[in-house]
């Protein structure tokens, strides 16, 4: 029997965690002599107060959805993929190759082609550590971290030596052709009469990310493959008994994971920058870990957590812009949220479970099976 009702598990625990993180952040802001209430107001108005703010929040959220799903699917197979960052970098390379060297007739085909390339590049980058883990026992946490550095070096080399347009001093590719330009939310919402900010980078990739959430939900909870992945994640010994190959599951789960991280590039590289630059991922691969933790590796949870982190990113940027709160403090606030929702989960959960148990035992007891006293 579960100790807590499901709604408490899914809604209450993360909400209380968030509240605690907010309180602590407020204290920190007070500590440096700023007004926390004003700061919150600014964050909300900056991130959610205009379609411009929303556009940025959703743009970041799209990135985090992809990387969050990447970590989540690996978690289901009890694999800790810390390599989302590197896989997303390689995905960017795939997108750049697709956009620069193939003459696409229409953005929709370009999106399809770029998504495929991004997924293949990301998947390949994840498949190598997966293979090393499955065949050689090299720990995937270590190898994926190392592969992040290798990816950064590969990207650096490629951009500086191979893909940089002649004469440019900037380690970046040339601008992608116009045919690969993705419709932004402004373009998409204008026909139905909604005037969305033109300057915001949120684009059609958001829909791809949402589709990925749905796809992953079906995969995990409704298919035989998802059943096998979860079984392997819960108990490797039982999986072996059932005839589920650990090698196969490790490879497949990591390949899907890497593909999802790679696909982030259609948002930040193709949708926003429209060229591949160094450090295009901006740490989104790591934020994915927090998103997956907070979202309990459930696609819906990942979706919501990604939007929350999108809000924190955009709101934080606004804070840095309009107040004297330094940028570093924004990072502190984000870290607090990650700490409370991800790492300190049990700190909230355990007292809450106790409260639920106490409430249950205090509730007027149901007619207990009292032995009827026989009349003597």
């Amino acid at each position: 029997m579960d100790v807590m009702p499901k709604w408490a598990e899914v809604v209450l625990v993360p909400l209380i965690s968030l509240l605690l993180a907010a309180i602590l952040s407020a204290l920190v802001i007070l500590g440096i002599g700023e007004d926390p209430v004003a700061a919150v107001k600014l964050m909300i108005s900056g991130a959610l107060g205009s379609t411009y703010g929303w556009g940025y929040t959703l743009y970041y959220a799209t990135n985090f959805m992809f990387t969050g799903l990447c970590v989540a699917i690996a978690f289901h197979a009890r694999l800790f993929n810390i390599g989302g960052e590197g896989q997303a970098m390689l995905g960017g390379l795939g997108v750049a190759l697709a956009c620069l060297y193939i003459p696409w007739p229409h953005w929709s085909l370009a999106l399809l082609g770029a998504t495929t390339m991004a997924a293949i590049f990301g998947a390949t980058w994840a498949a190598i550590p997966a293979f090393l883990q499955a065949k050689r026992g090299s720990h995937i946490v270590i190898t994926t971290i190392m592969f992040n550095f290798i990816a950064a070096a590969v990207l650096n080399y490629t951009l500086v030596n191979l893909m940089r347009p002649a004469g440019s001093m900037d380690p970046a590719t040339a601008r992608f052709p116009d045919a690969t330009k993705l419709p932004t939310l402004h373009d998409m919402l204008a026909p139905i009469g909604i005037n969305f900010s033109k300057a915001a980078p949120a684009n059609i990739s958001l829909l791809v990310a949402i589709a990925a959430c749905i796809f992953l939900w079906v995969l995990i909870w409704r298919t035989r493959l998802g059943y096998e992945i979860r079984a392997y994640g819960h108990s490797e010994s039982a999986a072996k008994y059932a005839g589920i190959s650990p090698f196969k599951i490790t490879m497949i789960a990591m390949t899907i994971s890497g593909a999802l991280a790679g696909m982030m590039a259609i948002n930040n590289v193709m949708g926003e920058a429209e060229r591949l630059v160094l450090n295009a991922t901006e740490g989104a691969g790591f934020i994915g870990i927090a998103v997956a933790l907070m979202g309990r590796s459930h696609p819906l949870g990942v979706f919501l957590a990604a939007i929350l982190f999108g809000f924190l990113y955009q709101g934080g940027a606004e804070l840095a812009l309009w107040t004297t709160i330094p940028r570093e403090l924004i990072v502190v606030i984000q870290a607090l949220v990650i700490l409370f929702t991800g790492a300190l989960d049990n700190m909230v959960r355990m007292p809450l479970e106790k409260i639920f148990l106490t409430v249950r035992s205090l509730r007027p007891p149901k007619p207990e099976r009292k032995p009827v006293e026989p009349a003597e």
Partner: protein
Amino acid sequence: MERQATAAPAIELKGISKAFGPVQANKDISIRVMPGTIHGIIGENGAGKSTLMSILYGFYKADKGEIFISGKKTDIPDSQAAIAAGIGMVFQHFKLVENFTVLENIILGAEDGGLLKPSLSKARKSLLKLADDYGLRVDPDALIQDIGVGMQQRVEILKALYRQADILILDEPTGVLTPAEADQLFRILGRLKSEGKTIILITHKLREIMETTDTVSVMRRGEMTATVKTSETSPAQLAELMVGRKVLLRVDKDIAKPGEVILDIKGLRVVDDKGVERLRGIDLQVRAGEILGVAGVAGNGQSELLEVLGGYRIGTGSVRVNGQELDLTGKHSDGQSRRKHGIAHVPEDRQREGLIMDYHAWENTAFGYHKDPAYRSGILMNNAAIKADTVEKMERFDVRPPNPKLAAKSFSGGNQQKLVLAREIERNPDLLLIGQPTRGVDIGAIEFIHQQIVALRDQGKAILLVSVELEEILALSDRVAVMFDGQVMGTRDASATDEKELGLMMAGITEAQTPPMEA
């Protein structure tokens, strides 16, 4: 006995209650254990025996009730306090550091000061004295990993005695011992008793209670249902008190009518990851309509035998099922292909292998058979069909509570085992591999599980039964093979052998005139 009746009881519990959330694990429990006696506590799994002992050892705090040690009211907030009060506990799963020596394990947690040397030499002296006093001889410099299970248990007892325990609690101490080792343990307990120690023996084995204890308390569903003098009770009465109804202690079965050979194993060898040969040329046959019991002390290759046959360990040699050669090494050496050969497997450890403890009951019903077309709709799994199937199976196998949406871990041991059995037996396999069918299963469920196994045999199926419970082997099997050190020591007709002969074979002793294996 007369003398002790006047002394204060070594342990007296008064009105102990403990609830875990809505579950009342202990309800108003009172017992008195006289010094210098062996007191048995018997009950089914989940009856609350372990909770009670955990309260006594300071792992849990009782909601209500008092503890008196030697007549003095004592508070036991943690295990340090329990040790200080003279209570020692020998757990079912030993708490020893494998790569430490016996001596190092004994002082672990009881070191004096920062330097090891003085503690070790002090311990060495008192160890010698303990060995003399109680006949508990061990090599203080042997590594734990190099000594046998019986010896390890002795180290656990010594650990308690070294901490000056007057009261010893032993939790299911014979689960991992051979009959001979168990006898030895009981001799040691007898000696400890005669030296004035008080012993509490927790077990579910009626025979041990009858043979060793002075008094016995029976627990059922968190309550103490009776405390009786062992000399004034009988196994049948105890079983009834435990379960709350009359229990059949013997398995009712007709004489087997063996048909053709279903499983034919020739020269099966297994080398494990460390390069140790675990199976050294096994030859066995199981016919349709018979139960072949494989007896042996745990760790003599029975697990490896089941794993190779179940498809998740690599072996060499020849295994034929229904005349078809099994792939032992290659691509088709996995659980899925084995199931296609008509082999069903109830693994030895249901919690590690047979079930995914976090999966719902219905998800576990599909486990291993999740590629069955009946469980499929298009590319998706047909969860509704699986759930419906689970409801049926739960009803036929009397799984309680009959709720397919509960996680496997929420069921009791017996009901978990029924879930696995229902899944495997209802597949109507030609060959059923079944390991430790009733380990950690309560008496009521044992009866049911045994009936199901015999029923499957009577349908003309071949059954390979592995169990470390000799009683179970003798009760169920038509023929018994004994394994020792990766080899089959011999095969006997169950009706023509007894515990003594099998016990000798389990210890690796064969008579010169072992009859040749039948063709």
